[in-house]
């Protein structure tokens, strides 16, 4: 018992057993699928189901109550327990570190459900994740027992299951420590470029069918300074409203004008481009030097994909440039795992700036930019993360190179294909099951990110804790990461999970859904047994038909 987070307990299980816990074995070839968008067919707009009105009303009332109680507690707390508010008031002539207003949400709402976030873990976040056992001993303190519990992992970004401590990728990474050390020692241009860096960049470029690429040691850092190298204040960036914080940060830093279009709304985008070109720059009406459209491949909070065919059509028609952030889609989408372009059968060369990360699918960290030789050459001497930032440590490069080689079949032939087919199957399997059980889930059919809507803020801790008690680790997200009324559970599917794991997840979700009243979908997003009626399959029915039905072209 201690307030300190303990060290990892010793694990005496055999390597085979551990390997199975990191990456479950495939039991049958029935549990495989190839994800691909039928060429020429328009992308179906994902239908966002609406819950009954009563849910919306009670959601707002919940927040109202939480806010009122929060203010009352603040009011009396400041009088009776001033020591708790020390950080919020001026002290000896110094301003507080942060404002009371700014931190209200954190102190009065998030703190209540703090145990659902930042659960410390140890070991590989593979098929199972080992969370330290803890209980809350006061508002800000946890007591750790020193033991840990293995939970089925639906929370880590481990789409292709490359988070492993054994196997060819790990051996390559270990060998890189021996051959290259633990650090790259220097920014790229001084002496931080090794032959391994060059090889990695070649492998990445080849994987993406592009001329060349640059690898950076952090995905966030890749975006955060990229745009400043591409645009100046006389350029316009048109950005999706739900773009990731790193993209928005990068755009802000670039100093270019920015306009935002409604999430994935192609009509809005079309109108915005046309008007922007016609109007030109504000006040002067001089024409824009260039226009860059910035989108993500797969939106990690919504689970839906960019409408790439349409965007490519628009960008070609209006001669804009296209930036696609494939953080979540690279590896996870497409028959060969080559991202959204692969999924939609669009040549990669149509995208001017392809960005992505190695964090999500490849079990590594870092990001890349790839594109035409001209672009990459220019970036090599004019892209500040590349010039001033640390270069990628060698073991990470080893992991990237080997995982990409597994996917293309150069290493362990067959393994890569299996991983790709399993993530496709698992994603559809879980999504269809949840839909049929009556949950509201967002996103595209093939997306490995499945947001399951909770709406009421109180259901976030309820669901998270109930699932945790069943040894399932999930991520709950609410305001401010989502709109106020749509708190959700985000499930990240992985190739490492077996069909039995998913059956277990579905069974538990079904029970918890009944318990917390979460099955309120109307059926407009599909899943109904009898057309027109809301889907409310029993868990037995779901499990019986799911394997065949999830492989039909449309999930209904």
């Amino acid at each position, binding site marked *: 018992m201690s307030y300190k987070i303990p060290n990892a307990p010793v694990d005496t299980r055999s390597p085979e057993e551990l390997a199975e816990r990191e990456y479950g074995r495939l039991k049958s070839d029935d549990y495989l699928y190839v994800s691909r968008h039928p060429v020429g067919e328009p992308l179906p707009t994902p239908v966002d189901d609406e819950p009954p009105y009563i849910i919306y009303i009670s959601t707002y009332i919940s927040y109202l109550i939480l806010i009122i109680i929060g203010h009352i507690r603040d009011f009396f707390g400041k009088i009776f327990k001033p020591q708790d508010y020390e950080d919020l008031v001026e002290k000896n002539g110094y*301003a507080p570190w942060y404002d009371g207003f700014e931190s209200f949400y954190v102190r009065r709402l998030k703190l209540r459900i703090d145990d659902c976030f930042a*659960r410390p873990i140890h070991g590989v976040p593979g098929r199972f994740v080992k969370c330290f056992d803890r209980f809350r001993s006061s508002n800000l303190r946890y007591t750790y027992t020193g033991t840990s519990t293995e939970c089925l992992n639906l929370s880590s970004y481990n789409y292709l299951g490359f988070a492993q401590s054994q196997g060819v*990728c790990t051996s390559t990474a270990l060998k890189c420590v021996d051959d290259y050390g633990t650090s790259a020692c220097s920014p790229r241009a001084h002496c931080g470029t090794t032959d391994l860096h060059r090889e990695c960049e070649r492998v990445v470029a080849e994987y993406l069918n592009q001329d060349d690429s640059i690898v950076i040691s952090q995905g*966030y850092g890749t975006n955060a300074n990229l745009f400043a190298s591409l645009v100046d204040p006389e350029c316009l960036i048109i950005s999706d409203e739900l773009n990731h914080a790193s993209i928005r940060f990068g755009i802000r830093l670039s100093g270019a004008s920015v306009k935002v279009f409604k999430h994935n709304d192609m009509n809005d985008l079309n109108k915005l481009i046309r008007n922007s070109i016609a109007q030109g720059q504000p006040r002067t009406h001089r024409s824009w030097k260039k226009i860059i459209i910035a989108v993500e491949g797969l939106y990690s909070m919504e689970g839906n994909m960019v409408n790439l065919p349409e965007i490519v059509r628009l960008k070609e028609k209006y001669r804009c440039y296209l930036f696609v952030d494939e953080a979540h889609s690279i590896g996870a989408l497409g028959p060969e795992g080559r991202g959204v372009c692969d999924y939609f059968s669009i040549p990669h060369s149509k995208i001017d700036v392809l960005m992505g990360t190695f964090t999500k699918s490849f079990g590594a960290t870092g990001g890349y930019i790839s594109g035409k030789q*001209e672009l990459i050459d220019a970036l*090599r001497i004019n892209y500040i993360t590349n010039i001033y930032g640390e270069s990628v440590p060698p073991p990470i490069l080893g992991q990237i190179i080997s995982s990409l080689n597994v996917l293309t079949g150069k290493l362990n032939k067959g393994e890569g294909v299996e991983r790709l087919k399993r993530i496709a199957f698992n994603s559809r399997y879980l999504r269809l099951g949840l839909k049929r059980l009556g949950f509201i889930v967002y996103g595209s059919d093939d997306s490995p990110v499945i947001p399951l809507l909770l709406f009421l803020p109180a259901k976030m801790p309820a669901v998270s804790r109930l699932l945790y008690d069943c040894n399932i680790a999930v991520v709950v997200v609410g305001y401010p990461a989502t709109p106020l009324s749509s708190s959700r559970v985000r499930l990240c599917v992985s190739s490492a999970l077996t069909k039995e794991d998913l059956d277990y997840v579905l069974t538990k979700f079904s029970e918890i859904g009944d318990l917390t009243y979460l099955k309120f979908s109307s059926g407009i997003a599909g899943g109904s047994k009898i057309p027109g009626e809301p889907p409310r399959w029993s868990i037995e029915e779901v499990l019986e038909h799911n394997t065949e039905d999830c492989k039909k072209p449309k999930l209904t």
Partner: protein
Amino acid sequence: MASQENVQATMSTKLVTATTTLQPSFEQFSSILADKFVGYLDYLNNIPGGTIVLRYIKSSYKNDPVRSLFELCLFILACNYFLSSKKKENRSDILDFSEKEIDELCRQWEPAPLVEKLGPQKSWDLRCTPEIKGHNGAMVQVTTPHIGERVKAVNLASSDFLNLNESEAVSSAAKSCISTCGVGSCGPPNFYGTQDVHVRLEEDLSEYLDTEQAILYGQDFTTAGSVIAAFLKRGDLCVVDSGISLALQKALVVSRCDLEWYDHNDMDHLDRILSELSPILDKQKPIRRRFIVTEALFSNYGDIADLPKIVELKNKYKYRLFLDETLSIGVLGDTGKGLPEYYGVPRSEIAITIGSFALSFAASGGFCVGVTPMIHHQRISSLAYVFSASLAPFSAKSASSAIKEITTKTNSQGKSVLISSLHEKTSYLYNQLKKTLTNRFFSIVSSPESPIIHLSLDKEYRKRLNLPIFYGNTEFLLNGKPARKSNGFSQRYNLESYILQKVIDEVLIRENILLTRSKNALDHENLPVANPHLLIMVNVAVSFEALDKLVKTLEDISHEMSHKIRNQEDLQILEQELLTY
């Protein structure tokens, strides 16, 4: 650098705004207004139903017309605000076009290329990057496109000063971690991305640096931008050294706080600014956050900040101190604890310290240390922490073991063996260079303590070649806002870099020693940029003989170079030569 007049000019405008208060004639003015207003109100009588409104207004405010007027103004302002916020763009600014005209305009629009194609004047820089084959350390196998392959070159271009990348202890720690945790962490710290190794490193670091808490970042370069933006908002104030690195410049731009610049390392200037600001700030209610921002060991100049003086000033005027120790952790002080240890100042005087694991610690990532509420706030609102995957576990483990390597192996005086060896080599090389480089080609600009020795072309020599005192622009210093236009290409900067590259190449060819030079993205720098420097990065594992050899060659080469390149005509020859590098 920020000239005094200019700073004073900005100060005086500040004073004006601060003293603008309501004048005593306000009362007279309001009574006149009130009369007028009541007069206008009477018109309401003429409108049907207006009498009722009039009576209501008059009675509700007990015939206090100024108050009604005030509320009316507020009402109009509010309406205006809500209506205009829907349409941000000024209506009058929007031109009316028919669909057909828009089609036509779209067809006519000629976009610029995504990036300019690199001309030969710039592209030579691409061919300067050395490629290391295999293990990076004190001795490397290096290839450059211009020279070809060199087996076993002495590496004085790496920022791994303590040579921990070749340490058995560090790499075996990394390997054991990879064998249990895999490579990546697969999630942001708040979503199952915090592992026991991360927590251990945070503890080790806060113990090492003697602070309450520490927080880890996935990359050193994004740390500053994320930390500063988490605490400094519009209306907060930073007094900043005008020699800071690009990472800090960008961080300050993003935070949108008010900025005052003091001349690089000029404590008198800092004192003057703080004392001039203090009467204004004393009136401030509520108090806003105020910081002094500086680097410990400046990456652009290689000199160190005068910490005791800064601490004295910041306590006197009640500022917090933000110290960027990216280069100085693991370098300065008897056990490598950075600038405070070097000066014997307690770490608690420094509100926010940031640093990097990627240099002396032979790992990767960045960190921030300080008091608990400050770190705690970052865990929720620092963008690069919340929205990015956590540091790779093995990097955390390597950093922990690097700290152990530095702190546990000490000599009889309690100094770290590694660190004192670094200090010894640094001052040896510094003194040797100081002694020999007397032919007025190179001069040393860095402090004797800096393990990165900055050699600049000599001042007089640069004058003869008609090279400017600094590059870039001063817009940011003078107006507090970065220039809208980026610096653009500078041929003279290019040539100066090329001269240094020639020196680097010669040293590599003759003595098999790899050096480097400052490499800046001139376009992105918001502050005046120092002229390019030749950089010698001391490494503990490099022998004294190698250092002697380096000093000797540098002496020879600078002699030859100063004869070969004497005036501006010679520079023009270089201009041609560079095209075929």
